[in-house]
């Protein structure tokens, strides 16, 4: 059994969490509140030291890009969210700027992966798999027709096929995920057994 205090704390945290499976309890609640607090403070530290500080030093001061000061001041307006209601609209300025910057990138860039996928649907229909893929894809697409072909028997039937295909897809995804979720537990288990209890596996 390990005598390292860090490992002991890790083991206690792990067991406190699992106790929830039996019943919500004191140890679990302490762990939950601690985690929420630590995570928030970790984020603050991380942002400050690896971002705000170096960017301020390198760009605002080092390169004399003085608009960083303006942007920083605009960023401070975010805190008006917590101000009395008549000032809260000020927080919209930084939100508007950063949302806009993100959207422009998304508008320009996000269609590209979709086009790649569409091009792949257009494979020559010369193998069984290509044909099946094409049919399955079209069936699922037609399930999502909301305004087109409401009366068409063909679209309705194809939509129903699409729903079955989706169920097969979901079954596959579910079955495939089981190994991932078990791996998560095995990771904790090997920590408890090897690192804490010292049993070699």
């Amino acid at each position, binding site marked *: 059994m390990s005598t390292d205090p860090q490992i002991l704390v890790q083991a206690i945290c792990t067991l406190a969490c699992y106790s929830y499976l039996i019943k919500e309890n004191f140890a679990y609640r302490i762990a939950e509140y601690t985690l929420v607090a630590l995570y928030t403070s970790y984020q603050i*530290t991380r942002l400050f030291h690896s971002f705000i500080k170096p960017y301020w030093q390198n760009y605002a001061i080092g390169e004399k890009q003085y608009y960083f000061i303006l942007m920083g001041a605009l960023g401070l307006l975010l805190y008006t969210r917590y101000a009395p209601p008549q000032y809260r609209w000020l927080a919209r300025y930084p939100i508007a700027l950063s949302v806009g910057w993100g959207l*422009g990138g998304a508008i320009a860039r996000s269609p590209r992966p979709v086009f790649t996928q569409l091009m792949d649907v257009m494979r020559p229909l010369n193998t069984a798999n290509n044909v099946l893929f094409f049919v399955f894809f079209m069936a699922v697409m037609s399930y999502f027709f909301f305004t087109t072909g409401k009366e068409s028997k063909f679209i309705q039937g194809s939509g129903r096929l699409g729903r079955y295909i989706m169920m097969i897809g979901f079954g596959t995804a579910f079955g495939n995920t089981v190994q991932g979720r078990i791996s998560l537990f095995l990771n904790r288990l090997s920590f408890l057994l090897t690192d804490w209890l010292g049993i070699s596996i």
Partner: protein
Amino acid sequence: MKREVPLALTFLMTLLRFLFEMINPLLNYEISEGVMLFSRISFSVTFMYCMGLFMGLINLTRVHGNTIKRRREHWIYSVWLLIVLYGYAILGLFFGGLESEAFNWIYDAVIVPLDSTMFSMLAFFIASAAYRAFKIRNVESLLMMVVAFIVMLGNVSLGNAIWGSESWLGGFSGIKDWLLAIPNAASQRAIGIGVFLGAYAAILRVALGLEKRYLGGTDW
């Protein structure tokens, strides 16, 4: 001032970024040797947004401060939360930060194991979900169950021992691969394209100023 200016700002920033992403000379424009305009604008936008780093701290202080003030159920845990919150933040900000040994010790001792353990509880929940969900009520649940069974067998050595990958159709793992590559991929792709269309329409209506809810508030 309250809404026209933010909407106009959104539009201008969207257009600016769009042009940067589309037009090659603009994307590669340098203010001076090695200093790229695109990167400086990006950095300043991120810099601005990161100024809100204390938002989470203020949130928690308000919520748990209220709990303590009104002596709601479990208020004593809220006291603990605030002590940890401020203690760790002060340690991180003023005592060495990310290089500080104490700071990283706590990170490794508490955050990492709690994070992984909570996540790992899914191993148990997926078992209870499978147990409840895969009861054959109709064609759809039958399909899901049969397929999930095959895929589970295809993923582990046990399935390989029953129907090996060298035999007809590649055994369970061969069928699993086919299921993943054809019906699953087809349905994922079609759903994904639908979601993309929903998302794309939404971002376009923001860019066009038809959507205002992202700015918050209910005074529209």
